């Protein structure tokens, strides 16, 4: 440790530097907040049904098996782009029907395969959840994930 540095100088550098970097971080976060609101997500399509879908997602803690834009439990497939994987961008009706049928068919009871529970979602909850997936797929994620597999 450099002898030129005294303890009080080290302390002042710590407090001054931390404050500086915190303010910079807070400012960039504020800008990111604005950018998300106006550019990377679509606030107009963020309907009540999408919001309800997020609540359904949270109520059943889907995140503790699946990941959503790469965050979550890694135990089950990525769902941030599941709408795209089901072809929702080209054929929304078919993707919606496919996703709902898949959730209704759980558990698959295939021997040796990870089992997803049956959550007994109502038709309205299923639709809301699919709306949430559709909206999430519309977020500008800087081209992540690299492949459709998620």
């Amino acid at each position: 440790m450099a002898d030129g540095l005294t303890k009080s100088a080290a302390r002042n550098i710590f407090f001054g530097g931390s404050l500086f970097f915190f303010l910079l971080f807070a400012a960039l976060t504020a800008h990111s907040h604005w950018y998300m609101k106006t550019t990377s997500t679509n606030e107009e399509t963020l309907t009540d049904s999408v919001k309800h879908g997020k609540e359904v997602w949270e109520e059943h803690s889907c995140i503790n098996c699946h990941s959503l834009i790469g965050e979550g439990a890694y135990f089950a497939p990525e769902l941030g782009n599941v709408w795209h994987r089901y072809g929702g961008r080209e054929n929304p009706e078919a993707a919606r029907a496919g996703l709902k049928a898949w959730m209704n068919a759980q558990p698959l009871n295939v021997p040796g395969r990870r089992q997803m529970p049956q959550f007994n979602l109502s038709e309205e909850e299923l639709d809301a959840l699919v709306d949430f997936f559709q909206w999430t797929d519309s977020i500008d994620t800087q081209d992540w994930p690299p492949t459709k597999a998620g």
Partner: protein
Amino acid sequence: MKYETQWVAYPFFAVAMALFALQVVFGLLAATVYVLPEFWAEFMPFNVIRMSHTNLLIVWLLIGFMGCTYFLMPEEAEREIHSPMLAYIQLGIFAIAGAGALVSYQFGIHEGREFLEQPFWVKVLITISFLMFLYNTSMTLLKGRKTAVNMILMLGLWLAAVFWLFAFFNPANLALDKLYWWWIVHIWVEGVWELIMASLLAYLLIKMTGVDREVIEKWLYVIIGLALFSGLLGTGHHYYWIGAPGYWQPIGSIFSTLEVLPFFAMVMFAFTMFWKGRRNHPNKSAMLWTLGSATVAFFGAGVWGFMHTLSFVNYYSHGTQVTAAHGHLAFYGAYVMMIMAVITYAMPQIRRVQPYNQILNMWSFWIMTGAMSFMTFTLTFAGVVQTHLQRVLGMNYMEVQDQLVLFYIMRLGAGVAVAVAALLFLYAVFGRAREQVPAGGTQMTSGSY
């Protein structure tokens, strides 16, 4: 133990270690499901096991930090704890909240964001208990001696409480949700918790090496400066793909790379002080955990963190088993081992005996650290294979997972070894004390407690 109220730490350590044991049990269950996918699928789904595993970790680490604080604060502030009774009440509230969360998870009652699954009433109780803790320890500090160690420790704890308040903020816009979710998750473990870790490390080094406090405290400021200068903007490595602007890719890459520095400084600090120290402290196992914590934190948080932090690497590795590998070794090295170091150091004083069961304690250290390393290696290999098959070749997720079974079996084996080591540690610390102090190294210089 110079101050009677340092004893307050004992029940905190006991509760923390009981929850640690439970955390390992849930970890074993989760690892079992990876190997036998139908295991308990009806009885306890994987998501419940996993949230129990992660939440128990967070709760016991917080209780452990509280115990460490109650133990060192009287010595550093040179006065008794403001109110031991308040400490016990506050521990009771925290334990009830934690147990309440754990039980409600088994019935599917939880909130839905990762690591913040606690039901609302649990979050409120945690907040109340933590504020009581902060009041109690801050009052002790305010009336007593202020050192860099206790000031930085309290700063870290207060900031942890401040950022915890983001747990109550859940925007409907998923991108915003993620933006602020990291203000707790990242700012805690890669920011203010490092203040707690570094000050505990400094405390242990002052006590066990006998190096001059001025030297150690200067290092301490440099380390936590490096931690926050890099760690705050380092949050950017979580903002690459969640809908945030593209500038986070260079900013996050650069600053999160610099996050290695505080961990490198801590490992250099710990070994330099150990080498310079003239004191031959008899508690060898506590010294082992202290040096081990700095070392494994450097590899787990520093090296394994850097491995997938650059945006052009993370583009492929994000959200694979590579993340799981890093998470396990980073938490183990930086926080689990540091609390174990303080417990190992404090318990002989709390029990008013010479350091005891040291050989057994060191067995536990090597088995646990070896097993955690092995677990990290297997998950890293799994993550590399997964990254290539899924992110480069575009293979379907479930098909890729089928290719990883061998790694998951080895991970389960490592988990069993961790469980054995945890039992050895609990017995070494709380079991019958058999004096084991090294020959020729038992003399203590004055004031070495």
